[in-house]
């Protein structure tokens, strides 16, 4: 590519004759390769040729394009140029040729070579010179039906008006009449449309369809009066298929939209036409409003479709009452369509209607409530949440509260905390607490602590808020500062907020507290910093067995990932084994040796194996440790681990793996 670009740049600054010589040399060099007997070998030169053509055809290089095309035309006229080369030359002429190429390409249309004349037809179809149409028209009568239909397509694409009489003559040809009709539709002149009209009577099947398609196509290109008459004809002719009637109606309506025409279309007895008419109102707010306000008097299906239109576009203010009325319909389909249309709307009226339906259990209404847009809708929802009067329905309040999970309302958590501070209704409280847990964040921690003092169930929301807090240190201080106000289960729950925050001050406070609840919380710490304090308390005889097990399991979870020297970890495992109160927990501790990827873990593990107390767990840990150490190329400890395992006389898979380990350690 760079070579070609460089060549192109060079060519820009050299005189025309030399330029042509240079191009000719490059093209001629490719000719034998483009005709290589091995078809697969032709691909690379084809791409190289395409690149040359692309450079020659670039914007602002007309002289170069002319020179390049001129060379191709010369080669195309020569009998010496092989057929595959000519095909590729013409394929590129499709993209860059202009009037200078028409004569040569026109001659190729007469070729007996099907491939060559087809690429020539394509190139002429794309040629901007009007003479190309004449060349194509001249080739219409040649060859076979497939060829003729290709020429017809090309003439149609070119909107070759002069070809109309010749094409019209083919409307009576059973094999070509559909292609002819299509071409006449593209030409879309007064004469071509008259020809289509002339073929209308008696047309059947695919030809009837082709005439319809052509007339609709022409209607979008004709002057307005003619187009309107043509579509009136299509719409009213008894032979016209309904799809074409829709297209005819739509064109005429959109060209001159009046509400009277729209209403007539919408109320048409054919529901397919009616449906299309409803859709034609899309984007026209005034007509949409009129339709919405008139829909109650219409057929049910039409109502559903108008409601669909409102749903797709959003409901204009002036149609809101009609939408709300429809949502109260006794017909389930209309009601559902109305509620679904409300999804894309907003405003207080719609919000209040949806709250009522949601409170009654309507899932579509609940969904729509989460999507309502605009400040007015949100204000209505907030007002419903605050409505604590005797006549206010708690179910509506619950429905309103539940929307806050899926709506990004800046002060939503504050509102819920405020409600919860003295809420009397249990259902409302439950809903508010549930939503609060999902949306509370760091800024809510102080008021949530206050709320928790009154209602310990709020501590769950506090934990969630702690998880989302960005300033963990400040949140920790707030929790620590409040601990004195909690006791019993509430204090235990508050302590478990501290590991969620993971701040150093919280960890220290738990370690210093040292009681069972604090240790339970410490055992949930998110990282290995808690290991020393937990280990210290694992030895605390004052703690219950349950608390002891919780602590040891906390260490087992945290130790492998703890940021401390491997030797320290190994020592900690030894200490933990000594502190563990029963065999089951010791078995779990032994497995930890397998998780310390360091040679220092080998000797104590061998010792455990040799003592024979936890044979299965120790052997598996030894295998795991051995594999890791082998990757570190620490063969000596691996050998001792493998020997220790084999001395326990294992069987089956364990024996096999231990022997493999031993072999690899040599």
């Amino acid at each position, binding site marked *: 590519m760079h070579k070609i670009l460089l060549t192109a740049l060079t060519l820009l600054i050299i005189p025309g004759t030399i330029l042509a010589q240079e191009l000719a040399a490059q093209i001629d060099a490719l000719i034998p390769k483009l005709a290589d007997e091995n078809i*697969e070998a032709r691909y690379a030169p084809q791409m190289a040729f395409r690149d040359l053509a692309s450079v020659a055809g670039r914007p602002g290089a007309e002289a170069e394009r002319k020179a390049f095309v001129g060379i191709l035309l010369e080669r195309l006229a020569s009998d010496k140029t092989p057929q595959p080369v000519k095909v590729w030359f013409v394929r590129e002429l*499709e993209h860059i040729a202009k009037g200078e190429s028409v004569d040569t390409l026109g001659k190729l249309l007469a070729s007996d070579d099907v491939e060559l004349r087809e690429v020539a037809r394509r190139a002429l179809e794309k040629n901007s010179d009007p003479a190309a149409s004449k060349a194509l028209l001249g080739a219409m009568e040649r060859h076979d039906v497939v*060829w003729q239909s290709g020429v017809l397509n090309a003439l149609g694409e070119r909107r070759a008006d002069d070809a109309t009489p010749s094409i019209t003559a083919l409307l009576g040809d059973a094999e070509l009449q559909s292609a002819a009709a299509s071409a006449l539709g593209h030409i879309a002149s007064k004469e071509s449309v008259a020809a289509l009209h002339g073929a209308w009577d008696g047309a059947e099947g695919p030809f009837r369809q082709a005439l319809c398609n052509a007339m609709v196509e022409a209607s979008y290109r004709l002057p307005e009066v003619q187009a309107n008459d043509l579509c009136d004809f299509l719409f009213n002719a008894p032979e016209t298929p309904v799809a074409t009637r829709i297209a005819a109606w739509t064109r005429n309506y959109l060209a001159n939209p009046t509400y009277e025409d729209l209403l007539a279309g919408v109320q048409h007895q054919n529901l397919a036409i009616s449906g299309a008419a409803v859709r034609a109102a899309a984007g026209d707010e005034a007509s949409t409003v009129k339709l919405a306000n008139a829909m109650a008097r219409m057929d049910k*299906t039409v109502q559903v479709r108008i409601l669909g239109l409102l749903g797709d576009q*959003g409901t204009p203010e002036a149609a809101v009452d009609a939408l709300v009325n429809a949502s109260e319909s006794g017909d389930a389909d209309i009601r559902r369509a109305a509620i679904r249309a409300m999804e894309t709307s907003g405003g207080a009226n719609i919000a209040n209607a949806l709250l009522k339906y949601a409170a009654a259990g309507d899932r579509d209404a609940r969904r729509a409530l989460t*999507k309502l847009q605009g400040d007015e809708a949100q204000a209505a929802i907030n007002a419903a949440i605050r409505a604590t009067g005797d006549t206010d329905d708690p179910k509506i309040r619950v429905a309103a509260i539940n929307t806050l999970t*899926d709506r990004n309302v800046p002060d939503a958590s504050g509102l819920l905390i405020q409600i919860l501070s003295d809420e009397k209704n249990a259902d409302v409280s439950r809903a508010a607490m549930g939503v609060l847990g999902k949306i509370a964040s760091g800024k809510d921690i102080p008021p949530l602590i206050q709320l928790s003092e009154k209602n310990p169930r709020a501590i769950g929301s506090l934990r969630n808020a702690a998880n989302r807090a960005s300033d963990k240190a400040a949140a920790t201080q707030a929790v620590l500062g409040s601990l004195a106000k909690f006791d019993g289960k509430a204090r235990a729950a508050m302590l478990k907020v501290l590991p969620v925050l993971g701040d150093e001050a919280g960890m220290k406070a738990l370690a210093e507290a040292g009681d069972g609840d604090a240790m339970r919380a410490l055992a949930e710490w998110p990282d290995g910093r808690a290991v020393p304090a937990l280990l210290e308390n694992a030895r605390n005889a004052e703690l219950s067995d349950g608390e002891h097990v919780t602590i040891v399991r906390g260490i087992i979870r945290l130790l492998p990932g703890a940021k401390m020297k491997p030797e320290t970890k190994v020592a900690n495992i030894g200490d933990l084994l000594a502190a563990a109160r029963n065999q089951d927990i010791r078995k779990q501790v032994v497995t930890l040796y397998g998780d310390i990827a360091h040679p220092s873990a080998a000797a104590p593990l061998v010792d455990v194996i040799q003592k024979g107390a936890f044979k299965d767990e120790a052997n598996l840990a030894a295998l795991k440790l051995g594999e890791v150490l082998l990757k570190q190329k620490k063969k000596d400890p691996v050998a001792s681990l493998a020997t220790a395992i084999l001395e326990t006389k294992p069987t089956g898979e364990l024996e096999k793996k231990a022997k493999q380990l031993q072999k690899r350690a040599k």
Partner: protein
Amino acid sequence: MKMTRRNFISLSASAGVALPWIVPGRALGLNDETAPSNRINMGLVGMGLMMNGHHRTMLGKDDVQVLAICDVDANKRKVGVQRTEQAYAKKSPSGTWSGAEGYNEYEKIVERDDIDAVMVITPDHWHAPISLAAMKAGKDVYCQKPMTLTVREGRLMSDCAKRYGRVFQVGSQQRSNWAFRKAAELVRNGYIGKVHTIYTRLGRFPAPQNFNPQPIPEGFDYDRWLGPTPWYPYNIERVKGNYGGGWRRFWEYGSRKNGDWGAHHFDIIQWALGMDDSGPVEFIPAGYKDNKYQTHIYGNGTKVHRKDDGGLFENHMIEFQGTEGTVGVSRGNRLSTNPVELRDIPLGSKDVRLYDSHEHQANWLECIKTRRDPICTAEIGHRTSTICHLSGIAERLKRPVKWDPDKELVIDDDAAERQTDRPRRAPYGLV
């Protein structure tokens, strides 16, 4: 209330759940005043790799009746008919059912008055001819992505769907996925600030190549498989439909990876940027001057780079970079954000909410009944496909292509403009 057309659209169809309401057959108004039943009578065209899932899904829908199968390979056609009949036989009280017809020519499905809708799951070069014929005969259409082979085909198809009042769904099913919708909503609503750079990875196909001729297998209508594309000798490598190459590697039948994964990911990018009725203004091929990656640029300067060498945010398929954050999104409902809190943030009452569909085919079926717009209309599919094709044209020309998305014309490059459509091999023109 101020409205915008697409921003407010939100319509769902829940996967695996019965449609919320079935409009009576009379109300469907499909081909005429009466429909034969509540069911949508379906024709399937193109029984290759991609149709497998669609076929299975349609056979499992109670509101769909598959009546016609079309493929140019007699064996695939036969298997398709058998599979259809066996599936319905299992549901039939008599244990038998034999109402599916197989066709070599799609025209025979289009001509049937009892067919309401057609799924076009063929190679790309057949999408427009079949879809246009079907819509003009009054059928609703589900068309595999990319919607088109050329830019002009897309304009024709979008106009046709509007003119004929058809429900047309493009198979860009990523739009019916939570993560992609959420990503697009975060970007659209400015949660990561002003988006300046977007990366996406599309992968690569083997280069196109010429193949030596092979005998055409019996029962395979190769001429019709080629359809409107230029004639080449048959070779199995040219026509096979595997994901790693086959016909997908050739420019003649598509836009290679730009039309393959690009049709999915560019589509999501268009959605996120609010460009469903517009598009980029410039396409730069990889390797042009200092451009390492294929790039397209929107009018506001936002750049989209095709970065196939990896390194996207959290190894995602698409990465949106904004002045205040990053969003990454992939298949499998994977969504990552920076800051992380954005991932689960609900939308505010003033935020744009995008069309909410949970299941792409069900969304189409529901819209056939309600006549509402589906989630990925022909206009959307056309605008996305335009990106695929113009990227391909720039790649072939090895120079940037400037584009006017309003006029839908290449600016000052006749050779590029000519390639926005392709002449068609007779007798396979567009209707």
